[in-house]
């Protein structure tokens, strides 16, 4: 990696004072599970790395009337061990457990999960976020077994790597970002964006901003189902997170969100519509899954991910309906 300056301030105010408007100039270090590898691979070459782990106000899980507040430096391990999380947000706990490496769960943070870079192997080999070589898009005719099946008309073909993103979108969470000029709340579904050119990022955050905390409303039954090739640490091939507001045994409203199938967590609104007013049965879940993938269009090697995503939706719905 390139040489860099390092700062580890104790307060949020000091951190924000160090951030820069220039893209790529400053990188934020929390767990470091992704940042260090991107630095070693020269995918990012920051002038300054700011460690935010010591900043107290960025940590902790607290509950209030609205629901839950999760600090951005809360680790996956803290998330899975928290009693309220387990009771109210099994979809998030399941998604966090899917990171099946104790080392990464001990180090990796909620904010880091949202801001981590895609795992696209063309990106990681240095062909840019969009995976091009002298203007040619490498993914569509290349090795695309792990790439997007939804919103994949280009130029972005990678899949969002976030484990928690789909569950947060389904639950209607908001992401608070802060900068030296104040803070703003971004709905989770607006936090992830599909870049249209190489200079865009895959998250709606400015270079001088920092994720400080997440707010999640309580009240929906929720579940996540994840399909991985390995039980050991591996990226999911497809996930589905669902959140159901119930009226007795009937769904009053539903949010079905797919992960690892599109450049962002994918909101399957067709499935949401179908589920409203229904009781969840195997047939209803299967039909919702079919609807969820209606607009999917596989690349040359990844049609199997459509089936996996459908199964994930069906199984997540049946799990959530158990209550």
């Amino acid at each position, binding site marked *: 990696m390139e040489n860099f300056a390092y700062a580890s301030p104790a307060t949020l105010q000091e951190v924000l004072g160090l951030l820069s408007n220039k893209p790529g100039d400053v990188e934020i270090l929390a767990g470091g599970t992704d940042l260090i590898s991107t630095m070693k691979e020269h995918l990012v070459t920051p002038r300054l790395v700011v460690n935010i782990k010591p900043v107290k106000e960025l940590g902790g899980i607290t509950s209030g009337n609205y629901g839950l507040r999760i600090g951005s430096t809360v680790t996956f391990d803290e998330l899975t061990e928290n009693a309220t999380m387990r009771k109210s947000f099994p979809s998030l706990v399941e998604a966090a457990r899917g990171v099946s490496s104790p080392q990464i769960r001990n180090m990796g943070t909620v904010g880091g999960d949202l801001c981590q870079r895609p795992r696209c192997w063309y990106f990681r080999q240095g062909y840019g976020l969009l995976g091009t070589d002298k203007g040619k898009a490498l993914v569509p005719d*290349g090795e695309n077994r792990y790439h997007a099946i939804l919103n994949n008309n280009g130029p972005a073909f990678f899949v969002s790597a976030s484990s928690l993103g789909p569950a947060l979108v389904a639950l209607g969470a908001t992401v608070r970002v802060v900068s030296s000029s104040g803070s703003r709340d971004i709905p989770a579904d607006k936090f992830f964006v599909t870049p249209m050119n190489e200079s865009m990022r895959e998250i709606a955050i400015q270079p001088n901003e920092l994720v400080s905390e997440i707010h999640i409303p309580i009240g929906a039954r929720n579940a996540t189902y994840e399909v991985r090739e390995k039980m050991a640490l591996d990226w999911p091939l497809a996930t589905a997170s669902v959140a159901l507001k119930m009226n007795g045994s009937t769904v009053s409203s539903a949010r079905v969100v797919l992960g690892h199938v599109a450049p962002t967590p994918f909101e399957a609104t067709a499935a949401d519509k179908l589920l409203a007013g229904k009781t969840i049965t195997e047939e209803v879940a299967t039909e919702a899954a079919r609807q969820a993938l209606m607009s999917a269009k596989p690349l040359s090697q990844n049609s199997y991910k459509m089936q996996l995503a459908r199964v994930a939706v069906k199984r997540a719905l049946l799990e959530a309906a158990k209550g």
Partner: protein
Amino acid sequence: MPDYSWPPMNDRRVIGKRISRLDGGAKASGRAKYASDFYRKDLLFGMLLTSPHAHAKVVSINLDDAKRLKGVTAVRAIAAPGDEIQWEGAEIAAVAATSEEIARDAIRKIKVEYQILPHLVKEEDLSKAGPRAKAAGEQVTGDPDKAFQDADAVTVEGFYAIPVLTHCCLESHGNVVEWKQDGLNLWPSTQNVSGIGGDLATSLKYPAGKIKVEMDHIGGGFGSKFAADRWGVETAYLSQMSGGRPVKLMLERRDELMIAGNRPSAFAKIKVAAKKDGTITAWQSESWATGGIGGGGSPPLPYVFTEIPNKRMSHSAVATNTGGVRAWRAPNHPQASYLTCSALEDLAAELKMDPVDLFLKNLEVTARADTYRAQLAKASELIEWKKNWHPRGQGDAGPVKRGLGLAIHTWGGGGHTSQCRTVINPDGSVQVEIGSQDVGSGTRTVITQVAAETLGLPMGAVQLKIGNNSLPPSGPSGGSTTVGGVSSSTRKSSVNALNKLLETVAAVMGVQPEQLKAIDGRIQMKDNPAKSMTWQAACAKLGTNKISEMGANDQRKPEGLNSSGVGGIQMADVSVDSETGIVKMNRFVAVQDIGLVVNPKLADSQVHGAVIMGICGALMEERVMDEYTGRMLNPDMEFYKLAGIGDIGEIISHLDITPEHDKRGVVGLGEPPAIGVVAAIANAVANAIGVRVSHVPLTPMRVLAALEGRNA
């Protein structure tokens, strides 16, 4: 001539016992030191610049900026302008610096200009290989055409594919070299402690006798760590250019996966015919493979069932712009077992026959029918085949389908050439010295067991020295020959040393040496245990003269202590989620004959390791090449996928420990249990889901495609 034969099975006190490995504690705690752990204050760090292109001509190399960097002690061009690079990862230049970070920076400052040439990195489509495919010529036995046309014959045809795997040693290849005025010290990660110095000497044109080699532990080799290698030679030059300071150069993970060896792929169109009773009458295979630019890889087909009366085989080697092949745990056998056993399982399904019965029916065309017959029975019992097997695709009604599959294999093994020295000191202490290496298989432990057994002493009384080329030379650990070699040489040197001691003691006791034996820490009369003295007292009679005796095993003349040629049967029990294509290992049974088993616990460990390696290859592991860029897309441990503990299931190892097998002497085990695993799992999946998945690894992508193919 002294009697070197192994003690009778029932009389053994140390050999044949389930003794834990001697270096287990050191390894589990991190006290065990590897070449990659080497550190000294004056240590320099070496690094390679490798080609980012699969096929290119080097136009120019400029080292100036790298040389100017502070902390850089040596920069060398490995390639020269005009050189043709044939694979990504080929070595271009090397640097040494005072820190790893500076070495990394220096590498990035080397400017190389390439002229890109067209590449071929994928071999599955043989029609695209053109002149890159070299046919080996057809082999025909009997009259296959007539046999296939026989009206009574049941014929199946299939296509089967197994990809290139890399060795992916957890400790990457590499070494530390210190080349001073008066000699060269080498601390390698090697399977060849006695031989690697000579290999380096040849490359450096430097006297082999001035090269000292030392290695305590190695983090995996699997057949890929015998030579000094280009990077070893470069490390030596970097050290020389840096005033003789030691330089450590271990390959980066990506280089490890691209240039430190791989296992060839294999693709085959296979046709098999049988009578309705299952007797195989004809075999035809058209196979191809790549092992890099040199082609490479020719699985012996048909595997094990070699004496099928009518056969036609053809094979092509495809030269691709990828890193070169190296021996991988039973070279060519895992591929051959997979191709053959898949075709036979498909034949059994077509015949509506239990594949165990099909194998039994055809054992007469194998080289060891009796062994396999007994092993098929044992494996069937352990996996409860009769209870759990169902005809193909006729299992569970729900989405999760369970299936069983089997595979057969054979291997040579034997005992490599090895010399050992046993020293008995007047104070009673014992040293065993042998220039071998413990590649993780437990070699330290088995040598110590043999010496302790022979001298009638407890394990703790034997001090073992291995891992140094100043010790009596012993062969490289390849071909499953280490345990056979070192156990035989140790037995001989220890018998020779003991006989010297008995001569001294006999004179003191006034008896003949032949009347004495060593047992339980004493020297005693064979027919009168009351007449004895302690080991300590016996050794004291040596006065000031220690005993130092040699023993040697000659690979060509094992003299009954070791032999070669083994068979094995493996069976897999899997569950397949037919909605996701995820294959879950329930149980894996490995039945193996390996002659005399020095340590059943370590042998079981070897089997477990081999099965785990096979599970990786069956379910997730493969090299992924990009056709357009010519580059490997997964030279990392993120997408070059290996199993974790949750992916493995239960492993049951059964060793054929019987008087008949025991009397053959010691035979190696490193390779045989790694052969049939992929085949057994692939067959179990076919049995579970009702269709053949033509390609391994059996990922959801492939399992679902196979299922949809059937439904379409």
